[in-house]
């Protein structure tokens, strides 16, 4: 059996430099999310470069949620150049998603 007190907390927390919900929830709790989204990383005192603005990852969730919820787009109207909404919306969402990913890239790279 696990010898540590809580098996759900990783033994080496620094093993997780990637996505951490705790940052997002921390931001939410402190009312900082808005500031994060406006670019806290640039204004604040030097932080470890990789920690800047993990809230940007929420943009990935937006991509997922819209793409994977068919009731949202399973309709004909409005059509675009005769193409039903179902098709042009999903094609347009490919482009929007690419832009959102690019935003995450640039914000994380700063």
């Amino acid at each position, binding site marked *: 059996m696990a010898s540590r007190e809580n098996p759900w907390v990783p033994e080496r927390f620094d093993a997780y430099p990637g996505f951490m919900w705790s940052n997002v929830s921390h931001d939410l709790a402190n009312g900082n999310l808005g500031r994060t989204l406006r670019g806290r990383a640039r204004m604040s005192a030097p932080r470890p470069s*990789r920690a800047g603005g993990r809230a940007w990852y929420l943009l990935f969730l937006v991509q997922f949620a819209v*793409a994977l919820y068919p009731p949202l787009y399973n309709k004909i109207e409005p059509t675009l150049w005769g193409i039903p909404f179902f098709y042009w919306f999903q094609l347009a969402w490919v482009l929007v998603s690419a832009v959102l990913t690019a935003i995450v890239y640039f914000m994380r790279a700063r």
Partner: protein
Amino acid sequence: MAQVDWIALLVFVALFAFITWLGFAAAHWRKGDLDQLHEWGLGGRRFGTLITWFLVGGDLYTAYTFIAVPALAFGQGAVAFFAVPYTIVIYPLLFLAFPRLWNVCHRHGYITAGDFVHGRFGNRWLALAVSVTGLIATMPYIALQLVGIQVVIGALGISGTGLAADLPLIIAFGVLAAFTFSSGLRAPASIAIVKDILIYITAFAAVIVVPIELGGFGKIFAALPSKMVLLARPAEHTTGAYSAYATLALGSAFALFLYPHSLTGILSASSGHAIRRNAALLPGYSFMLGLLALLGFFAFAAGVGSLPQYAPGFKQFGANFAVPALIMHSFPSWFVGIAFAAIGIGALVPAAIMSIAAANLYTRNIHREFFHRNPSDREEARLAKWVSMVVKLGALVFILFVPTKYAIELQLLGGIWIIQTLPAVMLGVYTRWFDDRALLIGWAAGMLAGTWMAFASELKPAYALHLGGWTFPGYTALYTLVLNLLLAVVLTPVLRTQGAPRDATRPEDYRALAR
């Protein structure tokens, strides 16, 4: 079949000859010592953002995809568009997990998922499970690429009896085998550039020219039966086509980057940054795939299915003949040659990468681990070259002597199998929390349940899950992944032994070096 279109054939052969030369010349591109496995099998990990874009694009968006997705639209309508949300979801996954995987693989010289799992979890049997799953999932995928070539060769009007009928396919594969042997990953990387440009030209030309010929998009969609245009609205007490569509997209996305050939393409990038940039640039291909899916509707509206000159093609290849028929129906011969070459070459690129990936897996994780412990670099690279040859030969024999139906069904099973490696590979990149034996049990349960469910639903991708009076039709792979994960999570605390787990990697190995 119909008579040979000589102009189209000439353009087709000329383009094929060009990429054959390119494949051999690629051995000298960014020259490295091809007697080392990472040089032959990963191109020396030297491809920057642009080459990675071409290579991974050519690798993931295969010729079979370009034939099969429009064919699905042609036959069944809206459901074929699941390929679009699918290829939207893959890129955040690529962005998040794979630069970390690239870093740790670079640091430790890993070239396969099996290498990584072995290092991370210190369990050779778990590594073997991951490697064998990769191999058996890849083999039918290679065979399907041949189907892509077969369809266009058939459409060009080349026919014969017995061996003569298969000769063009055998020649194409001889060419593929030879340049892969001599140049390794550099060959598909250079050819991918040609292939992708041809495919983009074809896709955009078709999406502009055909609707003009047919009188606009409005007319095309009006020609479709209304049940093809949208997903069926779910009845009471079922999530119906909606959950099938969404889980098919999500499950396929989880599976995609676990395939050995995807990993080979990603690991050949020169940095984690090149991978992240590509997560934002590769959707260009997704957009094109969506456009190509529409070609299935164009083919339907143009009525190629009932034209007598295409009847033999549809008889032989079924709905897969829809796109070739539409192209021949709508374009002059010289362009038909370009478009068909795009599809044919588009089959060679992923087939080459898949055979290289399979060879890497066998050489590193099966042969070296279980048969011959300390090969020299030269021996290792030689073995991989020969294994890649054997793998391709196996695919060729399979496609010549076994009905295509089985390759398609095996590929479906392959998706269900490969997703079972997600906990060890994709979650392993983030955490060493899981116990290796728990992961192995979860994997085994997922493999067995997935295979059983696939047969229970008559080898259709969706399985109807009944729960509390409701029916949830969904992608079998995703359901069995949940089972796999549940077992791994529940069994980990039970099986965990005292002391620190074995792990050859350190947390800092997963991070990019400071620049």
